[in-house]
């Protein structure tokens, strides 16, 4: 067996997910893109704007992509019975929701692309995701707090800011024991001085592992 960076890392990416129909790429994958945006935002948005490109722009209505992506943003699982009603649920909560069918090619070069903007009166983020099939997604760009982050593969991805170099060393060591680290990238933001580290992992982490890693950081996002 050889160690290779691959998009589909688990048998359950192929047999699964258990989900509400009708489409794994346009429904379950869209839930996953929404969920990633929720993880990055870590707050309740008052405004959601979704830009669709290519296949997503042509077929989002038929595939239930709208309610799926909003479900992810609200934190519903792909098999939650509330999934088909998510847009109404968001609007009842006073969130402004809009969907825009873009006519241009995807800015992140994939036919199943959604760009998610979340905002409230305090802050805003933008996340560009694509659904590559079977419910698996890639997050190819994140704009948050002045950082412009470009991951290069499928999830899981960790974004972390550290207080001290010692914490960072310990984090790197602990993380390497939990998963193969496929790639690490560093980012400097335009708003804050701290360096942001982005880690692309080979294996999903368990809740206790995420908690232990998080304790070593100033801020951490796990997608």
């Amino acid at each position, binding site marked *: 067996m050889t160690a290779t960076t691959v998009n589909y890392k688990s048998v359950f990416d192929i047999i699964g997910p258990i*989900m509400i129909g*009708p489409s794994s790429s346009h429904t379950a994958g869209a839930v996953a893109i929404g969920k990633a945006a929720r993880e990055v935002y870590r707050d309740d948005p008052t405004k959601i704007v979704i830009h669709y490109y290519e*296949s997503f722009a042509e077929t989002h209505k038929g595939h239930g992509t709208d309610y799926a992506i909003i479900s992810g943003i609200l934190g519903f699982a792909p098999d939650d019975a509330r999934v088909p009603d998510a847009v109404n649920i968001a609007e009842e909560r006073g969130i402004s929701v809009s969907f825009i069918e873009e006519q241009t090619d995807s800015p992140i070069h994939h036919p199943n692309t959604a760009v998610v903007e979340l905002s409230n009166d305090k802050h805003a983020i933008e996340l560009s995701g694509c659904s590559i099939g079977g*419910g698996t997604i890639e997050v190819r760009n994140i704009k948050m707090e002045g950082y412009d982050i470009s991951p290069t593969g499928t999830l899981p991805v960790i974004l972390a800011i550290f207080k001290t170099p010692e914490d960072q060393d310990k984090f790197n060591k602990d993380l390497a024991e939990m998963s193969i680290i496929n790639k690490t990238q560093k980012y400097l933001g335009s708003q804050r001085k701290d360096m942001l580290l982005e880690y692309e992992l080979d294996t999903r982490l368990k809740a206790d592992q995420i908690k232990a890693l998080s304790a070593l950081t100033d801020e951490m996002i796990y997608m």
Partner: protein
Amino acid sequence: MYMSIEELVADSVSKKQPISELIINQECEKSHSSREEVWHEMEKNLEVMRAAVEKGAHGKGVFSKTGLTGGEAAMLRKYRKNHVTLSGDSMVEAVQNAIATNEVNASMGVICATPTAGSTGTLPGVLFILEKRLGLSDEDMVRFLFTASAFGMIVANKAMIAGATGGCQAEVGSASAMGAAAAVEAAGGSAQQSAEAFAMAMSNLLGLVCDPVAGLVELPCVKRNAVGAGNALIAADMALAGCTNKIPADEVIQAMKTVGEGLPKALRETGLGGLAGTPTGKAMKERIFGKNEHVAS
């Protein structure tokens, strides 16, 4: 991690283990999970599949919101009771199971995507008829899913499994090939025979386009899963009889990728070409969504 079918077959031979066992071990190692955890996770998928097969054919069946699909698994169940079927009761039951699952999917019911939701009926179509034909236990059925996933992971990582990138050959084609390979193992065939079944099943569906009417996972998706299941059983039988594909499985995957990349955008899940582009297909789209589909809402 296994990145070719050749590697998978070679390891099965040298370790004297079925492919299902190799992939269970790979999963445990990669996810740092116990065998019990991984097994249980796959059992849950099997339960969801069984529930969908039953729900879709029960009573009058299930129907999608648009009315484009539904109720046909139930029709097949009734037909089997009252008629001498042309292709044999097992084949028609496999078709019924495949259609039932995709009708549940189209009606926004709960399904297990294998490998995708659009191709969700193909594997259950094969699996639940083998349960009867071969007297498979629940354990055998969970194993079937692991074997299928071993082949599916290689396709997904080496080529594609999304209609938007590779057409329906990447979805139902992949599901059918996975089902054929797993059926061979369930029937006691060798790893090489699984690879041959896989190669034949995928070769038979090369070039299949993704052309959903109105962009919905209904027409022709539901019935393509019937063909996927039938094709898998045919390919598995041929492999068990000793027939070979001549073109190796890994090269068939590469061919599928090349064909997929060559498909025009209209035939890759945009709901524009193929059946979606017929006068009736377009009229259905207009009835469901109105004329101004392209205008931002």
